[in-house]
């Protein structure tokens, strides 16, 4: 067991994957000599050589399209798209080919590509560096979508994704990159598709993932201290596959469900979960499913992101609204 930042945990996972399997390749913009703009690939180029970890030209569609071509020949590429907002040039390669290649070859070929993307906001970045892209990928059949929130999960889920025969979009919450946690090298936390109950509680269920897990836990602490509310916090960890059973079990217990994510509200994961919960758990609910999300606007300039991002207060307001249905 060692204490690592998420960046270090991701680096360890890439190192261990490259060491365990010659078919693993790591590449992207500035991931070689420089070790990545967040240093996630630091040292890999030196340790494994240019044929295993290398810089590409500045061309995101090429990074994904070439990864697919390598996967067809048996490799397990782990390309990096440097920032969330730069996945859009590769959208066609991801949506038209990466997600569909298994189906397009009637199951004969799989494309085990893990696309790592430093993602989401909260660190005061310039424009196009704080996007929540997950709904695009979740809405595209054929992709696994993974969002870790702790160093241990970042390590474990990345190794799982690389070993998976399905293509994975692996969204790393930048604002958690430097948070520390215990990581057991060589150990796995839970397979992709398994949510984690980060805090057990009875008053209401808060469902979230990535950078907002920590916000939800902080809100739960405040809620307990100031209001006597006992929140249950679920970290989805992966959006596809979705561990809806974990959400359902919690909502059956609490009768209240609040979904929070940074992504804009309309057609976000919260919309899907609200639909599923009311479809499948209607009689368990004491209140409507509520959403605490980013707004349906472009991501704001850095000076305004604190106002835009869902935080503790907005989340506690939602809990209060959910509980108000008891008084009705």
């Amino acid at each position, binding site marked *: 067991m060692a204490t690592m930042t998420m960046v270090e945990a991701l680096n360890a996972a890439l190192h261990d994957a490259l060491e365990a399997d010659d078919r693993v*390749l790591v590449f992207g913009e500035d991931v070689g000599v420089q070790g990545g703009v967040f240093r996630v690939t630091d040292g890999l180029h030196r340790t494994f050589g240019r*044929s295993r970890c290398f810089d*590409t*030209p500045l*061309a995101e*569609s*090429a990074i*994904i*399209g*070439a*990864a*697919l*071509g*390598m*996967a*067809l*020949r*048996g*490799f397990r*590429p782990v390309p990096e798209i440097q920032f969330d907002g730069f996945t859009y*040039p590769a959208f*066609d*390669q991801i949506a*038209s*080919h990466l997600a*569909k*290649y*298994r*189906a*397009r*070859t*009637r*199951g*004969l*070929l*799989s494309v085990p590509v893990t696309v790592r993307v430093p993602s989401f906001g909260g660190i005061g970045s310039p424009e196009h560096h704080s996007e929540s892209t997950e709904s695009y990928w979740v809405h595209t*059949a*054929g992709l*696994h979508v993974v969002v870790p929130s702790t160093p241990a999960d970042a390590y474990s889920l990345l190794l799982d994704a690389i070993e*998976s*025969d*399905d293509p994975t979009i692996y969204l790393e919450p930048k604002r958690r990159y430097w948070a520390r946690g215990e990581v057991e090298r060589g150990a796995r936390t839970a397979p992709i*598709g398994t949510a984690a109950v980060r805090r057990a509680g009875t008053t209401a269920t808060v469902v979230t993932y990535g950078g907002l897990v920590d916000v939800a836990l902080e809100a739960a602490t405040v809620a307990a201290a100031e209001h006597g509310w006992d929140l249950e916090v679920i970290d989805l960890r992966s959006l*596809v*596959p*979705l561990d*809806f*059973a974990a959400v359902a079990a919690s909502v059956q217990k609490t009768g209240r469900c609040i979904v929070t994510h940074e992504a804009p509200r309309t057609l976000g994961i919260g919309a899907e979960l609200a639909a599923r919960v009311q479809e499948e758990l209607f009689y368990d609910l004491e209140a409507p499913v509520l959403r605490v999300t980013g707004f349906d606007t472009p991501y704001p300039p850095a000076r305004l992101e604190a106002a835009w991002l869902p935080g503790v207060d907005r989340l506690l307001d939602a809990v209060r609204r959910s509980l108000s249905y008891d008084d009705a």
Partner: protein
Amino acid sequence: MPVSTSADALDEPVQFVAPDGSPGPADGYDPARLDDRLGELYEAMVVTRELDEELVNLQRQGELALFPSCRGQEAAQVGCASALRDDDWLFPQYRELGAFVVRGIDPAGIGLVWRGTWHGGLGFVERAVAPLSIPIGTQALHAVGAAMASSRLGDGGVTVAFVGDGATSEGDVHEALNLAAVEAAPCLFYVQNNGWAISVPVAAQLRAPSIAHKGVGYGMPAVRVDGNDVVACLLVVEAATERARQGGGPTLIEAVTYRIGPHTTSDDPSRYRDPAEEVAWAARDPIARCAAYMRWRDMWDDTVEAGARNRAADLRHRLRSAVVGAADPPAAEIFEHVFARPTAELVAQRAALLDELGQEG
């Protein structure tokens, strides 16, 4: 070999056989070496032409939803594919019937795609042919990645990205050319310049003097070849392939040819081009040219024609009997190839569809 990174050499396409079938200057190549293969090339072109006709017929009879004819481009496709090893990966667009014939893909697997039985192509990847790629130019990047894989595997493999003149306007093709050049990837970019991107002529697609000229900008050898001269196509691709196998990197090849037919069976070229153009290009027919050249080389006799027509008839019959009234796949297959292991949602949705259809799970 006569490829060049300077623009000067790129104006006139390499041609060994004139439209009347007479041999031209060898230009550093050895066309006579192909004499023994002329019968095989002729047969593949005849088979391509006849299967193409059969596929158009099947579409007109309502058995296929759509079909994009490759009529007129047989030499470009057969010549290219015949220069390669059987395990060199091909990354086609959707009009490469001639390459599929050379690879020995069962024509049924092509017909059933256009029937709508399944996407991509059946029996393709087993023969190192990627599924048909309809989003224009996107497959060029797959070819580069597969070539980079070959470099790492050390298997001596060369990949071929088939693109058209229209695709050279697509960002993915630029990214592919650049990445291949930077990586010295063993990848050929085989551009069939057939004059038309649906209704847009090549003159409205680029301002460069030719598509091959673009190779200069990527630092990549490039060559123009007469795409209706099967001998020239084969020898030019062979030379580029050998160079790539020896670590010499990619080549951009522009095969100048012509799409005699419509873009697809849904298209009407009379809306955008002068039929006189089609007549002029029909006079440059690649199959007749090959036959005339074979006579010139004393490689022709009646058995060549009879052999080619017999094989074509067999394959036409095989195609027709496989496609006409072909059974649809089971509806449950919609869910089968999404993931290695289906999600809980897919399992539930599959059950719901089967229930709706009154079928057993």
